[in-house]
Every structure is written in structure tokens, then in C-alpha cells.
């Protein structure tokens, strides 16, 4: 039994009564039904703050219901879904649609993330105020980087009225070009066009300056480079209200995985080097509470439905990490429960 909110990590019994947890500890004998969970982990529902549900628009890949089923199968009770659907989640009606479909599925909590700009086009601000009222938990043009500094500045200024975070997909599209993997000696050897680390870091560096300027809450999606980790660490030290997340595959795999040309290892941001993995594992520990959060974000740019893969396999990664803490230094289950709740002010689960 692991419950980070109570600092609980021990082998014990859980007594359920009328669908609720009545007691945790040594249960007295005499339960009607006994489930033998020896060797398994019982924990509060995990939270994933970066999920793609593809509905509306690409239901052949994933629906809100199928994504929720995958989440539950992976141990996730709350998920926040990205707005890069067709049409995108860029107004209050679209946010309400997600809540309605999630409630029909009736499997887990779904918290929609609204788009920063209309059509995720990076130009005009979307109606973020009305989306907040409809229940949007954060804002992002995920998949598209907000490349214009002026647009990002306006978005950050505007969002300070609503106590929500702006989530950026940090990628300078000119620098990443037609890249399909990390730009390094492996991409040179394989003859594959690369996406340099600096394409991520330059945008991040600029945004952290803008976040500092505005005092807005800024969240970095899927951090993948050592340079990014350092930038976030420094920004936090300087008092910028920045949080970040990291994907499990960026903690476990390097660009060497691409050497077989298996397209399952093609992703954005790409798998980086061993140094980057080490930096992401260490994390941008700063003085300001909320830290980085692993998310189940797995996405194939060609559009293969890997979301399910991501959510289900994340459980494997996390359980493995919980059991073998040595291989996951400094990272515990609360990364997937407490910290996401703090970052997005949402997520139901174990309370002290």
C-alpha cells in the first residue's frame, strides 16, 4: 500500500465498505470477500496531465471513451487531455463536449486543456476566460509551438487573470525542420534528419523570460534535454512560476533506440542522449514546491494511435520505478499523484 499524501508505504490490508475505503492497516478478520493482493501495489488513482484523446475529429484513432478505458487499465483515475483535436478545443462549447463525452464513458475524471490561440494557429488568443468558466484546467497549443514572442507575451499577460497555467510545446519549427529524431552523432550515422536540442531550449529560454516579465504560471510540456532542465532549474531559483513534466520514455530510452529504424521510437520531442536522460531523471529541483511530473505522452507524428500504448505502459514504467527506486533516483509515486494536482489545481484522489 502506497499513499504519498499520507506518507504511507507498507504492506497492510485495505478494508472496503459500501464502495469506500473504511480502513487501512491491519484489518480484523471477518470480511465477506478477501482479495489476495500479495506482491501487488495498491495506490490512489494516478493522474496524467498530458493525454491526447483525438475526439472530436479522429475517432478512428482514439475516442474519449477508449482513452478513458486505457487510462483506467493503466491505473490512472484522472487525465488532462490536450486540445489538438479536429476541430481543436478552442472555445467553451468544445470544453463542454469533452466533459459530456467523459461523463457518458463514466470511467475516470477527464480535465480538458483549452487552446491558447484560435485554431491553434498561434495568432489570435482563444476565448480562454470562457473556457475557464466551462472547466478548462490549463491552456496549450500542444503539437504546435507558440512561436511568436508577441503572442506568447499576450497569452501570459491574459492568463494571469485566471490562475491557470500556459503550457508550451517548446520547438522552434525552423530549427527542427524535417527532423525525425534527435540531432546527434546517431542521426548522422543513420542518415536521418535531426531535431537539435537547441530547437527546444531557445523557445524555452525566451518563454521563461516572458513568464518572469508577466508573473504568469508557465508549464513546459515534455522536457527532453539537459539544457532545458538547467534552464527550468535556474528560472525557478529566480522565482519564475514555472513547472515542467517529463515523459517516461525520455527517462528510459536514448536515441540509440532509433538504430533499428523501428518507427515506434520516432516521436516528438525525440529520444535524446544518455546525458539528457540523466538530467531529466535528476529533475529541475527548485525551491518552489511543484516539480516536474512524468506523463504518459506517447505520440507518433504519423498519427498511429499510441495513446493507449502510452497509458497502459506507463503503469509498467511507474510500477517498475516504484519497486526499483535505485533506477529512478529521486522519483516516487507522488510524481504521478500529488505533483500533478498541484500543477493544475485539479485531480481527485487521496487527501490528507
Amino acid at each position: 500500500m502506497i499513499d504519498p499524501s499520507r506518507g504511507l508505504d507498507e504492506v497492510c490490508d485495505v478494508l472496503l465498505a459500501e464502495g469506500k475505503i473504511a480502513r487501512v492497516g491491519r484489518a480484523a478478520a471477518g470480511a465477506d470477500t478477501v482479495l489476495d493482493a500479495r506482491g501487488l501495489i495498491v495506490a490512489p488513482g494516478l493522474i496524467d496531465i498530458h493525454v491526447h484523446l483525438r475526439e472530436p475529429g479522429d475517432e478512428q484513432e482514439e475516442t474519449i471513451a477508449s482513452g478513458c478505458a486505457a487510462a483506467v487499465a493503466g491505473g490512472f483515475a484522472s487525465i488532462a487531455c490536450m486540445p489538438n483535436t479536429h476541430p481543436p478545443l478552442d472555445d467553451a462549447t468544445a470544453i463542454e463536449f469533452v466533459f459530456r463525452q467523459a461523463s457518458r464513458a463514466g470511467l475516470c475524471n477527464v480535465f480538458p486543456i483549452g487552446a491558447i490561440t484560435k485554431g491553434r494557429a498561434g495568432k489570435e488568443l482563444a476565448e480562454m476566460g470562457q473556457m475557464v468558466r466551462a472547466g478548462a484546467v490549463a491552456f496549450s497549443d500542444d503539437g504546435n509551438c507558440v512561436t511568436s514572442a508577441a503572442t506568447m507575451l499576450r497569452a501570459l499577460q491574459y492568463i494571469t487573470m485566471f490562475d491557470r497555467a500556459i503550457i508550451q510545446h517548446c520547438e522552434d519549427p525552423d530549427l527542427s525542420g524535417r527532423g525525425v529524431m534527435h540531432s546527434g552523432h546517431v542521426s548522422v550515422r543513420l542518415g536521418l534528419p535531426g531535431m537539435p536540442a537547441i530547437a527546444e531550449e531557445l523557445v524555452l529560454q525566451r518563454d521563461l523570460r516572458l513568464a518572469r516579465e508577466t508573473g504568469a504560471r508557465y508549464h513546459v510540456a515534455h522536457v527532453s534535454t539537459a539544457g532545458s532542465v538547467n534552464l527550468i532549474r535556474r528560472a525557478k531559483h529566480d522565482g519564475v512560476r514555472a513547472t515542467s513534466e517529463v515523459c517516461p520514455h525520455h527517462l528510459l530510452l536514448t536515441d540509440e533506440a532509433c538504430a533499428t529504424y523501428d518507427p515506434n521510437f520516432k516521436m516528438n520531442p525525440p529520444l535524446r542522449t544518455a546525458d539528457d536522460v540523466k538530467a531529466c531523471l535528476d529533475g529541475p529541483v527548485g525551491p518552489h514546491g511543484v516539480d516536474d511530473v512524468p506523463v504518459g505522452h506517447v505520440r507518433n507524428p504519423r498519427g498511429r494511435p499510441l495513446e493507449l500504448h502510452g497509458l497502459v505502459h506507463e503503469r509498467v514504467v511507474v510500477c517498475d520505478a516504484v519497486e526499483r527506486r535505485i533506477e529512478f533516483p529521486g522519483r516516487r509515486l507522488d510524481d504521478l499523484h500529488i505533483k500533478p494536482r498541484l500543477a493544475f489545481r485539479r485531480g481527485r484522489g487521496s487527501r490528507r
Partner: protein
Amino acid sequence: MSQAPASTPDSTPAAARSAAPPSTAIWRRRHLLGLEDLSAGELLHIFQTAESFKEVSTRSIKKVPALRGKVVVNLFFEDSTRTRNSFTLAAQRLSADVLEFSAAGSSVNKGETLLDTVRNIEAMGVDILVVRHSAAGAPHHLARCVKGCVINAGDGQHEHPTQGLIDIFTIRELKGRIEGLHVAIVGDIAHSRVARSNIWGLRKLGARVTVVGPTTIVPARIAAMGCDVSHDLDDILPKVDVINMLRIQKERITSQVFPSTEEYIRLFGLTSERMKRAKKDVLVMHPGPVNRGIELAADVADGPNSSILRQVTNGLAIRMAVLFLANQATGVDEAV
């Protein structure tokens, strides 16, 4: 290869007739995907096989029955003159039936996937697939999914193993050795599959390789493959035994990587003036097609040091050897 009883001794090449690559050198690779994978011994085995096939081309009847009854398909998803015709001719000289496939005008234009296209063609009874594709790794992907032999005829910017074999075979023929030679490869290294195959093969056989060109198309990280990197042709030229000039591939360069063609010629073009700095017996190579007057001046391309047409002639023998060995490996598999 199990000796085909039908072969008359006269029509079987020496390598097959003596049937005696020593047992340690028996070819066991069904696919030829890149020179990165091959050992020095395997490279030499291909060269020995190619030498015996060279002789076939000098006969009045330029044909042997080694691949009789086999089907070779040329699957070209990208344009080619030399490679395609050379593979076709090589397969025909081995008496194989050859099927020509071009992406243009095929169902690829109707949205059929690469794998579906190839599986459909394979279902017609194809034994060897010669694949060229603009995506690095495409032949590797197919090799995992099809039953036949896959020969990489160029995959994106990754490898062009038969061109690498041709270049090294030609150097070996004209210089008598590979070990200890210093080879410069000049041009657009970043986008060149020919460069990568040459680097792997030459390094395995003990040559020193220096890649030369502007910093924007000669990535420093390529040194991890075991070569030296230079950005000064005039400095390198007097030191090398072989200079392999790559084509400036305008169609692959999506952003401006050097200010003008004129500036490129001034800094990296091999002119007769610049040739004066080189060793007298330097070998000038080019995998083709040549941009005359850009990377290579016309008089140098046609001059006494040039081995360009020899490379093309050798191409046929190398490709016959590669097809022959791939087919032989299939035979080994079946016997096991």
C-alpha cells in the same frame, strides 16, 4: 550455392565453379543493407566474387546461368540511371528474370503503403528485391517483413552499399591495396549515402578517410564513424592517394547551406589548377552523376587520373556478385 547440375563448367564463373570460398568465408547474409554491418572478410569475399564476374563481361556471350529461374525486382521509389540499369543488366547476365517497378505510375499514387506494395509484388514470386527509397531505413523495414532477399540500392541519406563496394573495389584494383591509403571524400557529406558506405568500408579495410567540405554540410559529429574532418581542400589535397568528389545534391538541400555555387567552386571544386597540388598518381573518383564545372571540372573528370567510367564498369561486376551471394545465402538457409 548448391551446384546447379545444369551449369556447364564453361558458363559458371570461377568463384562458383571452384565452389571454394573456404568454409569460414561462406556467405550467410540474405540481405545487403549497409557496409556498416559487414566485416573486412565479407568485403573481401564480395571483391573476390566480383573479380570472377568481371571476366564474364569480356566474353562474346556475356551470360551465366547462376540465377536462372530466379526473379529479381527493381523497386525504385526514387530516380536513378546508373544504379537501376546496372542492377538490371547484372541480373540479366546472371540469367534472372527482371521485373521493373517505378513508384511513378504505380498504386503508390493511390495511397498504397510501401509494405503493401512490396508484399503484393513479392506475392508474384520474387526472390530478390533491389530497393531504393528516399527514406533512410526503408530497406531495413522491408527486410524484416518479406521472405526474399533485400538489396539496398540507396536509402535516403543513410547508405548506398553497392556504390561503396564499387568505389573501394576500384581503388583496390588501381592502387593494389586499401590498407594504408589516405582517401578524401569531398562534398555534401551530410546528405550523402555514398559517403557513409565509403567511410564504413574503407575504415574496415584499414584506409584513412578524411571528409572535406563546408562546415554546413560536413557535420563534425561524423568523426564518430572513424574519419577525420577537414574544411580546407587545398590543405588536404597534397596528402591524399584518392579523392572521391561527391555531387552537390541540390535537390536534397532544403535550406541555404553555402552562399553561392560560385563560392563553392572557389573553395571546394576540383579544377585542373587545383590538381597541381595533388600527388601525380592521385585517383579521382565520382559516383555520378557529375555536375560538370561545379564539384569537378570537365577536364579533370575526363583526365588521366579519373576513374569515373571504370567505376561504372566495375559496378556491373559488384552487383552481379551481390545478387549471386544473396541468392547463395538463400540456398544455405534452405539447406539448414
